């Protein structure tokens, strides 16, 4: 028995060590052995868990941006592309250190603390999900490490008065207003009363709740009538009850405050029930590559907000070049969140370079004077600079519709590359 138990214990220890190794793999992983003159950028993203596909897409984008900063790309009109490394720090290279949030707020904070305390990173970026960014940035603020968030939308993140938190992405109030402006324009163009009633699906984390609150508030102010709002967990194994209830309310248009996997399941469940509103719009998550590749043709006629409309952006030489590089390296072009993560790393490199040192206070001060012109961005913005709350000043969204297997810009009308289709054709009429 004693022998048996010791054998059991040995197996257990081996298994646990293996699990520990697997669990920590993302925290241990580093880009290259650290030379003395590197600037350590801690990247806090969901590399495992339900949001892992998003984290991996962001990781690819950030790695490509770091490659551009660390090596010479004289033909690219991007910040620091022409030089090798950061010229004001003697050519110091960017070293990326990754930590996995597993898509949860608790892990977000501990992963950030790990990067600050164990890895002694100089600056941080992350975390895609607003709820995770919220806790991760609290740790960064506590340790006075500059934290750039390129990809979370909850407005409250920049309302906290944090000194070391910067956001290079438009907030939820901006894009929810864009949605309402779009639908108001639809009623003007297609006749008053085309769209009157609204339904909302929203996942129950900070982002989903806040986004939907803003949509509701602005929609009601614009005269739309809410007929159903459904809050749900994005980890749900089944969304039949949600869709059934929405079908019963039968709104003219639906806002889907959903992430990626739940967007896919909603589309599939709507198809299962043979139900559609006249129009359905999601955030930029709806346009994520994973939704496109998984939902496929079922995604036809759905709408998504987009900061990085490929049909317009890819006409620009710079964006087309980056798309080519991404395609060659990763087999896919950047989607919206990936384009923002890519830009985020360039912003960090620019700030550190202008700071001229790895001193965190100097880097933080440099963020305040960021001013990158639009022609040096792959995003279609006039420039990137921050206001007194450390929030991006500019930034605008387009509305896209998935038509014939491609996202096409349908609004603003004057930028449209395709005609908006309304109402969405019934499932059995396609």
């Amino acid at each position: 028995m004693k022998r048996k138990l010791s054998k059991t214990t040995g197996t257990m220890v081996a298994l646990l060590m293996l699990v520990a190794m697997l669990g920590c793999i993302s925290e241990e992983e580093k880009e290259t052995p650290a030379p003395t003159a590197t600037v350590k950028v801690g990247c806090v993203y969901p590399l495992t868990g339900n949001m892992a596909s998003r984290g991996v897409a962001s990781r690819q984008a950030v790695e490509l941006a770091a490659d551009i900063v660390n090596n010479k790309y004289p033909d690219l009109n991007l910040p620091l592309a022409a030089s090798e490394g950061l010229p004001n720090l003697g050519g110091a290279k960017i070293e990326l250190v990754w930590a996995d949030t597993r898509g949860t707020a608790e892990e977000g904070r501990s992963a950030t603390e790990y990067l600050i305390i164990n890895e002694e990173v100089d600056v941080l970026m992350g975390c895609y999900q607003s709820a995770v960014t919220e806790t991760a940035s609290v740790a960064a603020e506590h340790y006075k490490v500059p934290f750039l968030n390129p990809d979370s939308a909850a407005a409250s993140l920049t309302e906290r008065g944090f000194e070391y938190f910067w956001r290079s992405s438009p907030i939820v109030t901006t894009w929810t207003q864009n949605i309402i402006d779009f639908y108001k324009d639809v009623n003007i163009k297609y006749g008053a009363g085309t769209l009157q009633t609204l339904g909302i699906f929203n996942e129950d984390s900070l982002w989903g709740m806040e986004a939907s609150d803003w949509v509701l508030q602005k929609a009601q102010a614009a005269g739309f009538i809410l007929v159903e709002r459904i809050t749900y967990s994005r980890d749900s194994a089944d969304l039949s009850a949600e869709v059934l209830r929405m079908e019963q309310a039968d709104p003219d248009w639906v806002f889907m405050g959903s992430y990626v996997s739940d967007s896919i399941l909603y589309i599939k469940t709507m198809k299962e029930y043979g139900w559609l509103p006249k129009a359905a719009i999601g955030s930029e998550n709806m346009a994520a590559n994973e939704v496109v590749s998984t939902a496929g043709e079922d995604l036809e006629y759905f709408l998504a907000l987009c900061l990085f409309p490929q049909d317009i952006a890819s006409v620009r030489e710079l964006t087309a070049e980056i798309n080519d590089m991404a395609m060659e390296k990763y087999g896919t072009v950047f989607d919206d969140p990936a384009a923002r993560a890519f830009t985020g790393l360039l912003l960090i490199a620019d700030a550190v370079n202008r700071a001229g040192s790895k001193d965190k206070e100097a880097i933080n001060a440099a963020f305040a004077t960021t001013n990158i012109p639009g022609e040096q961005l792959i995003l279609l913005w006039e420039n990137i600079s921050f206001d007194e709350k450390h929030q991006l000043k500019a930034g605008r969204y387009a509305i896209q519709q998935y038509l014939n297997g491609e996202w096409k810009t349908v609004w603003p009308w004057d930028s449209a590359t395709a005609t908006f289709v309304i109402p969405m054709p019934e499932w059995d009429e396609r």
Partner: protein
Amino acid sequence: MDSAYVLQALINGIMIGGVYALIAVGLSIVWGVMGIVNFAHGDWLMLSAYFSWIFYMYAGLDPLISLPLVVAIFILFGFANYKFIMKRFIDAPIVISIVATFSISLIMRFGAFIIFKPDYRLIKDHVLEGVYRFGEFQVSRAKFATFLIMIAALLLLFSFLKYTKTGKAIRATAQDRDVAKSLGVNVDRIFLITWGIGLACVAVAGTMISTFFYVFPMMGISFLLLAFASVALGGFGSVHGAVFGGIVIGIVQQLGGALVYPAFKDVFVFVIFILMLMFKPKGLFGKY
């Protein structure tokens, strides 16, 4: 709120409950016979869904066609899982077996991340796409087929347990391992077969789920929690209790979501779970 709406929610509940039942049966039978709570059960579900997707993607096999293949493979996985890993923990304290299955779960989950990447995979254009319409009601073909296959699989399982010599030996082992051994039952072989049956059940569930749910490394967790609730309601170790529990959980979830509010649908499920643990910890049909 009309009666058709309520009836539609009820139909949805029965259909999805069938899925929970099938997952729960595999969990329950392993517990009933061996006293092991298999925390890796959800990850075996995930793996079987991946097998279904692989057969579809690389061999063009519809999940309905690949189902027997996946089940056969998972019976072998069940044998191997017992022979090379779980056998060593049979006489160990329960906490050891829990940690062991939990470790297997993590290895499988993170292994899936490495091998399959975190992308979502969906099987499209299979023969069960679409819905059946009965007047004003509709049922997903995939979920309806899953329900029918669940009934067929469980009838097969019940017949096996009731009428075959091996089935009787399994039941005897579940009732009292030592007595069964003294009566000449090869308990080691029974454990081996039980693991095979447990994973066969989960393979049926995983393959059928892949027809209406996206496949990705974390998918097991959502289903496992509901399967645990089903087993707790029906009773640990009771196969028919697990079936009953699964269907009731499905109905409670869907009716709760449709009649009260969808955000609370899982709250109702886990309130039942807690109440059962508090007032009837053996579950409705459990013996342990």
